[in-house]
């Protein structure tokens, strides 16, 4: 279809149609891909699948509430340098030796085009995404300590995930290709299961799916179980050898699907 490198569903990741278009648009336009969706719908897995499918190295940056934008670029280890100067170790005169590249820096300096995953960007401070605007636009940043600019040799494929804990700033959104991973419909879920559990018994799967969608339809749940919980649950069910009928009559291993105590009580109290 195009001269661009393109991403397809593969043996380890089942992507919905629109997602493939979005990924390929992000690769071709060299814009970050922002992936949103319920927890457990495979946002982080996507980055792994893209890296694998395109044969690129994957560099991951897990954002935490204390993360600052600069941590992703580089850190200057002054404490180490001071320590070295006291004890006469290392080459203290060369600051370069104490500059350590963060994930973004590593992705920029990679000798191959890399996939950079910025995971759960919404965990950071409200201003966090804004602090990365220039770096993501120009794919370059300055390191004043050594008076150098690090610019990307190969513009990395950037995949950013968000659980929508916080709103992201408009200026940031405008620069991204956006995709929302919706909860998979039954047929896609079957494909996903086939990737993870190729050997699963059909009756067991049908019963489990019936139960699973029935639970997801409940409005009162605080946290609806998602794909990853379903896969875990199947794992446990298959491993324990529970019969398909038991899944429908009782609700074995409910705790694997429902993580909140109140949800567990609400469902199992009735079932």
């Amino acid at each position, binding site marked *: *279809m*195009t001269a*661009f490198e393109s991403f397809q569903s593969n043996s380890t990741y089942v992507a919905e*149609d*629109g997602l493939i*278009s*979005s990924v*390929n*648009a*992000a690769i*071709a*336009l060299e*814009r970050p891909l*922002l992936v*949103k969706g319920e927890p457990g719908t495979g946002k982080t897995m996507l980055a792994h699948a893209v890296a694998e499918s395109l044969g690129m190295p994957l560099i991951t940056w897990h954002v935490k509430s204390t993360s600052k934008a600069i941590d992703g670029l580089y850190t200057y280890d*002054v*404490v180490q*340098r*001071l320590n070295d*100067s*006291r004890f006469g170790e290392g080459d203290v005169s060369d600051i370069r030796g104490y500059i350590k590249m963060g994930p973004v820096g590593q992705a920029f300096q990679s000798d191959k085009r890399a996939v950079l995953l910025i995971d759960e960007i919404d965990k950071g401070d*409200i201003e966090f995404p804004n602090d990365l605007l220039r770096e993501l636009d120009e794919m370059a940043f300055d390191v004043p300590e050594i008076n150098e600019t690090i610019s990307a040799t190969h513009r990395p494929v950037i995949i950013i995930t968000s659980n*929508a*804990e*916080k*709103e992201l700033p*408009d200026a940031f*959104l*405008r*620069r*991204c*290709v*956006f*995709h*929302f991973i*919706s909860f998979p419909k039954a047929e896609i879920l079957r494909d996903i299961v086939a990737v993870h559990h190729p050997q699963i018994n059909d009756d067991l799967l049908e019963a489990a799916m019936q139960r699973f969608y029935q639970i997801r339809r409940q409005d009162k749940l605080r946290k609806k179980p998602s794909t990853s919980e379903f896969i875990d649950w199947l794992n446990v069910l298959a491993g324990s050898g529970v019969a398909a009928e038991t899944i429908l009559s009782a609700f074995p291993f409910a705790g694997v699907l429902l993580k909140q105590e109140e949800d567990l009580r609400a469902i199992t109290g009735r079932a």
Partner: protein
Amino acid sequence: MFEPLLYHLRGQGVQVGLQEWMAFQKALKGGLAATVDEFFWLGRALLVHSEAHFEQYEEAFQSAMAGHEVSESLKESLAAYLENPKAWEELRAAGEHNYDKLLDLLEDFRKTLEEQEKRHEGGNRWVGTGGTSPYGAGGRANQGVALGRTPGNRNGIRLPESMNWGVYRTDKTLSLRDYKIALKALRNLEREGEEALHLDGTIQKTANNAGDIEFVFERERANKVRLALFLDVGGSMDPHAQAVTQLFTAAKDLQHFKSLDVWHFHNCVYRKLYRDYDQWDTVSTEEVIHNIRRTHRVLFVGDAAMAPWELFSSYVPSAPCGLDWLRRIRAKAPASVWLNPDPERYWKHPTVEAIGDVFPMFPLTLDGLRDAVRKLRSPV
């Protein structure tokens, strides 16, 4: 190209900027959309930044791509012809159109529609049924634009996916979590309390000084914002009880504010406010106003619709009327807004307008609440 899509999106309230539009154009030129489906996905990925706008995108896409291009009379003729579809096979052989790009196809489609005056049957050029033209219904071209099979269906182009995106719209519904996220933005973190040694900072500073010790002290950060909710209860507010309860629960659950006060009133604020409406536990409004501080953020929730005399007059002449009380609260708390659970089309009402003059008024939707919070953060 395809500017109608841009204007339909903006018409639906999706703020698509030039930057995104140019990226979309670039992607189209780069050949990223070879089919209608890919065109649809590409537009959504680049022009829309939130699942909250997916439904509007689908609507805009339909109107831009088909709705207003296909005239009513043409659609009727098509519908009539669909009753009587032609045989596939003999026509298929002739219909080898090689449109490698969707763009040319849709552009041609649009031009053809403009040129076309009446319905056609068969043939290889005009829009109509049968035939080998790449447009129309029941035709047998191998590629092309399918026009809806249902009479009266306003879309010619089939959407690759139409889920119920409505549940994600932020201009309509709200969940408890949405309220919390929106209210969380109401913060004003200031350092206060005891100074404590900031160990990391001290080490960093000392190392920067090449070993000369420099201490760094820091105060803990705390949210200084006090939140006061004034909630209208009873009467015309009953249908909105759930929305109001959720807002109240969200504010309480957050434990995010320095203080949270909740006052109830019926219709409008008068001499007394209720701590608990059912228990008739009252407090004088005078006292409440007295205790409002600079750091208070005040949220009113009410439909603001009442009989004019309930707002503009009082039982005792010379005593303040409802509107006077509201003005006094506003004067004491410049960071105050009014959230109205009624849809905006009902706001053309004398008392709603009068209250809207006192407080900036927003609808009680996620978008409205966000706007309100933004207003509260920078009241002037």
